[in-house]
């Protein structure tokens, strides 16, 4: 029950932050993908089951906010959730530097998969924002890395 509530809170925060970023600047929209932050964080914290389920939910929510082929973000985020959960269980990615590197690789994979699928199933061109969307993996890695650092610090202090 606690896990479900935490996941619901994570999704709610993602929805609200996305609306905030939309209002703040059009440039931030392709750069900051808060739904990916939530999927990766829960996948690495709770395991691949949480990653798969949250990936599906967050991806479909992202699709619902886009005028394009419905299900593409759903598919790429489901795979992202699974991979993030599975790999982080097999290798130790807890140290900060390694954590950032892993997050960067995994979010680059997701972006690549999403771009590939969009190119394959949609005739629409992708908006590169002058190449700014390539910053998305950097931003995701830094943001999720920071969230991990802070949450570990809080957990240490609490215990």
């Amino acid at each position, binding site marked *: 029950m606690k896990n479900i509530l935490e996941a619901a809170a994570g999704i*709610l925060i993602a*929805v*609200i932050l*996305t*609306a*905030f970023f*939309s*209002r*703040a*600047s*059009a*440039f931030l*929209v*392709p750069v900051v*993908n808060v739904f990916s932050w939530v999927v990766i964080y829960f996948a690495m914290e709770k395991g*691949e*089951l949480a990653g*798969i389920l949250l990936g*599906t939910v967050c*991806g*479909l*929510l*992202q*699709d*619902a*906010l*886009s*005028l*394009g*082929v*419905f*299900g*593409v*973000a*759903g*598919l790429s985020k*489901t*795979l992202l959730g*699974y991979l993030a959960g*599975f790999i982080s269980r097999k290798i130790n990615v807890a140290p900060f530097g390694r954590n950032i590197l892993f997050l960067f690789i995994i979010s680059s994979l997701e972006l690549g998969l999403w771009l590939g699928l*969009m190119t394959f*199933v949609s*005739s*629409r*061109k*992708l*908006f*590169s*924002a002058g190449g700014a969307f390539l910053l998305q993996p950097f931003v995701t890695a830094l943001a999720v890395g920071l969230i991990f650092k802070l949450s570990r610090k809080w957990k240490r202090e609490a215990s």
Partner: protein
Amino acid sequence: MPLFQKDRKYFLLLAGLVVVHLTLISIQVPLGGRTSLFEKTLFSVLTPFGRAASSISRSLSSFWNNYFYLRQVQRQNRQMRDELFTLRQENNLLRNLTEKMRGELAIRGEISPYFQSFAVASVIWLDLGNVNRSIIINRGQSDGIRPGMVVLDSVGQVVGRVVGPILSRSSRVQLITDEQSGTSVFTLNSKAVGILKGDGQGRCVLEYILSTNPDVAEEEEVVTSGFDDMFPSGLKVGRIISIVKTSSLFKRILVRPYFRLSELRQVAVLTENLKEF
């Protein structure tokens, strides 16, 4: 449960969900451009949160501007006073001019559809797939919003038109910068008629202008023609930024739309079917 069994179980779940997603993607082919019920349901679940976030953001920004950052308020106030003064003068001049030209009753009959013929809406979300495709606004069926209605920015320049899904208090607007949009337009000076389509990168392409047409020039203004029966004629759309002669029958003409996505906080939805502006 042994570890490999757990792995297998998760992998099967992943495979199942991948199949579900692929089915979702493939069933959209027979749907064409229409929205599926599932997408509509997700959209309706999401928008109340977006509306809440948008109104919180607006409140926080107005709290900051009204109580702390008063320099900006004063500057805005001065600007708005000047603008109001100018607009009143212009309005009076235009009224006098039109009344001189025709009888008052005839004018009232013609002008009345233009008053209260629009709904003001706030932008809740930009498109997460490509910001140049669509926006989501906080007005829907209960505000009289219907598919195909024209959407303008704060100074009456074309932004796009309403497409599905349209819920009770929210709807989606397809921008003119979307590749799958189409608007019948003409160039103001040379009167060349063409179809304006988005290029997905924040600009538009003016199509079907013959390579042999010598009159179309850069910096020329582009307005709606009204031939498509979707947009009233005479609405400002944008300005030509480049013309390239190609080996094909038509010129490649790039148009920069007037509306600025980064400044798009509020829009006006034309709720009346007006023929011209």
